[in-house]
């Protein structure tokens, strides 16, 4: 056991820190650090800066732009991005469909999609959840029926994050309604400009538009856009959900948010009760970060380690707790959340309520905390 980074890892971290803080546009980073809303152009611009340096998709296979790093290096890369306010490469591209195509795709699919996916030339959306298939994903009903070489897709997806910017969408569709529900699902890639695809915004309680419904009405999809085996979609879904060990918990970003909050709190930090809440959160975040480090440091070890569910569960709780503290510190100023920019109230205080409300999603989307507890109790504890 030792705490110090090896000289090579320390050098690696410095290189990341140097790059992120000097090469990614300051304005983009400030937007992230201050908790303001990123435009899609900013997300694209940032990812391309990273990709040009080989830092957008380091966990992909080397031949497709990956870096063959250790888990610790990936962790450092991820933490330093958050610390510097660099937008994490778009998850739908970098963490989801990219690794899936690299693992399950045909050579043709790889060549066609992977470089454009890494560079965010294609903006991918995710088409998994449906109104009646959320935590119970396997009950999905969107159907794909063979018609010659094509598939004809009908149905509705929902909770499609940033789908309004999407060029393509990777979907789970039912290709065999006769068999056990997990067994009849396949993955199709769908061009969102195809006739019959319609994206409808869902307004959230923070007033933002970040999720959508996506409707498919007789959408024709060429047969070569099936990924992996026919009716093998469930395997892909499990691969995708189990793929992530690094960066599951938003540790760096939450630490950064708490540090910023201390600055914003100003004189309120003289209140012992405020100090105690901050101290408690800092400690909780340290424990979480160390747990993430244990996970990456353990990965060569055969011993079972606290899985990503612990990180996700606790990480989202802490993210939410920091937003609660921000709201309480903002106080009456938080009421001005939809005031114009010339408001006399400070920006952080005006963003406090929408951020608090928006982050309620953290414990719901991407596997709710109930699902995480179930994974822990079943998979880790064997209950």
């Amino acid at each position: 056991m030792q705490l110090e980074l090896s000289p090579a890892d320390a050098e690696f971290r410095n290189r990341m820190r140097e790059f992120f803080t000097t090469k990614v546009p300051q304005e983009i980073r400030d937007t992230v650090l201050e908790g303001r809303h990123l435009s899609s152009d900013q997300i694209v611009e940032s990812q391309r800066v990273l990709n040009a340096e080989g830092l957008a998709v380091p966990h992909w296979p080397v031949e497709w732009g990956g870096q063959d790093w250790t888990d610790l290096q990936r962790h450092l890369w991820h933490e330093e991005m958050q610390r510097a306010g660099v937008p994490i490469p778009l998850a739908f591209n970098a963490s989801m469909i990219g690794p899936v195509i690299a693992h399950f795709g045909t050579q043709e699919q790889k060549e066609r999609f992977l470089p454009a996916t890494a560079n965010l030339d294609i903006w991918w959306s995710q088409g998994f959840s449906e109104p009646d298939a959320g935590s119970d994903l396997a009950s999905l009903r969107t159907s794909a029926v063979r018609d010659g070489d094509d598939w004809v897709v009908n149905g509705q997806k929902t909770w499609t994050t940033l789908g309004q910017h999407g060029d393509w969408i990777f979907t789970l569709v039912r290709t065999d309604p006769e068999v056990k529900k997990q067994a009849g699902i396949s993955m199709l890639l769908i061009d969102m400009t195809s006739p019959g695809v319609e994206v409808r915004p869902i307004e959230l309680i923070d007033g933002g538009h970040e999720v959508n419904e996506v409707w498919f009405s007789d959408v024709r999809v060429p047969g070569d856009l099936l990924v992996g085996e026919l009716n093998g979609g469930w395997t892909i879904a499990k691969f995708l959900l189990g793929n992530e060990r690094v960066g599951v918990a938003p540790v760096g970003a939450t630490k950064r948010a708490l540090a910023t909050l201390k600055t914003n709190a100003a004189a309120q930090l003289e209140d012992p009760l405020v100090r105690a809440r901050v101290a408690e959160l800092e400690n909780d975040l340290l424990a979480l970060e160390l747990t993430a480090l244990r996970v990456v440091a353990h990965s060569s070890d055969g011993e079972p380690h606290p899985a990503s569910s612990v990180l996700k569960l606790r990480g989202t709780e802490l993210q939410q707790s920091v937003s609660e503290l921000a709201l309480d510190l903002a106080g009456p100023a938080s009421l001005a959340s939809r005031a114009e920019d010339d408001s006399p109230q400070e920006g952080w205080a005006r963003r406090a309520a929408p951020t608090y409300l928006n982050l309620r999603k953290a414990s719901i989307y991407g596997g709710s905390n109930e699902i995480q507890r179930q994974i822990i109790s079943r998979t880790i504890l064997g209950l």
Partner: protein
Amino acid sequence: MDFTYDDEQQALREAVRGLLASAYADHDARRTTVASDDGFDRALWGRLAEMGILGLPFSEADGGVGAGPVEIGIVCQELGRVLAPEPYLACVVHAGGLVAAVGSPEQKADLLGRLSSGEVLLAAADTSPGSRWSSHADGVRASVSGDLSTGSGQRAWTLDGVADPVMGGGAADILVVTAALPDGHGTGVFLVDASAAGVTAYAAADLTRAASVRFDGSAATPLGQPGRDLSASIATISDLTRIMGANQSLGVMQSQVRATTDYLKSRKQFGVTLNTFQALTFRAADMYVELELAHSMVDWATMMIAGGDREAVADAADRVGLQVSRSGRHVGQEAIQLHGGIGMTAEYAVGVGTAHLEVLDQWLGNGPHHLRRLSERVTDHDLVEALS
């Protein structure tokens, strides 16, 4: 001792509930209303005036109905149940309360009568950027032509500074403004015609409306006797508003618990309804516990008003404020979580209710604020007595 409504109070509740049920039959109606320019329903406001609801707190001599705190609490609870965006708390309870507390007989008769009839809208401007639930104005300063110490003569008052947030300020005809008196004489209360100030309206997170108000030598009329420090009365009216805000929060929570329970019974996952999952039903049970504790404290604090003792009302406001803040956060968060994704959407009442709870809380005094005040007083007593 009695925690039940009498027949008249029951009838009032039914009447208000009926009226609101027609205006806000579902959450879509609320969405339409908050999307309008005013952000609330002026027709409904008129009907509330006709029913005497706007005049409830004021004496009959002033054109009101002369009802008690329990009746006002009933109205606030019903407003909360449907997330009504009407500025009842801001305009009637808070701004009207200030007028009733410190206005001269003439001012009261004039303003409260017109307020009760729905003819004018008031808003209380008592908060400036950076201030936190204080009865001592610091962001708005009052100036007077002539010497304050000479009692006679007509003097002209003006205000300078910024008040923000001013709940219901965008629609108000007359602003009831707390301002620092010259030469450290304390805090006074002034009437300012909305047209004499720079009013910029905006929506809060729950889409109810507030405003930023800039005074730039704005002509002002002292409410009550000019030049007197009114901070004690200002504090008491804030306390009363806090307690009525807690009634409104209680209404929100009641709706959220009901909606969540209904959802668990009807929503299916993995082929069964969600109430099959014990981890979820136990959490619903904990929501119910919080709701009932809040309910008890709200009833108690509302009844404490009748005693009339300022310190006791302040204590009750802190106690119910802390309780409703804690319970509201618990219930509001769990309501969304147990609904899952749908709870995050603006088209669903449950998540908007969570926003509403937070707006009420941060407006009127949040949990840490009340806890701090109660903490300062823990050595003042041996036990907290529920019954005197």
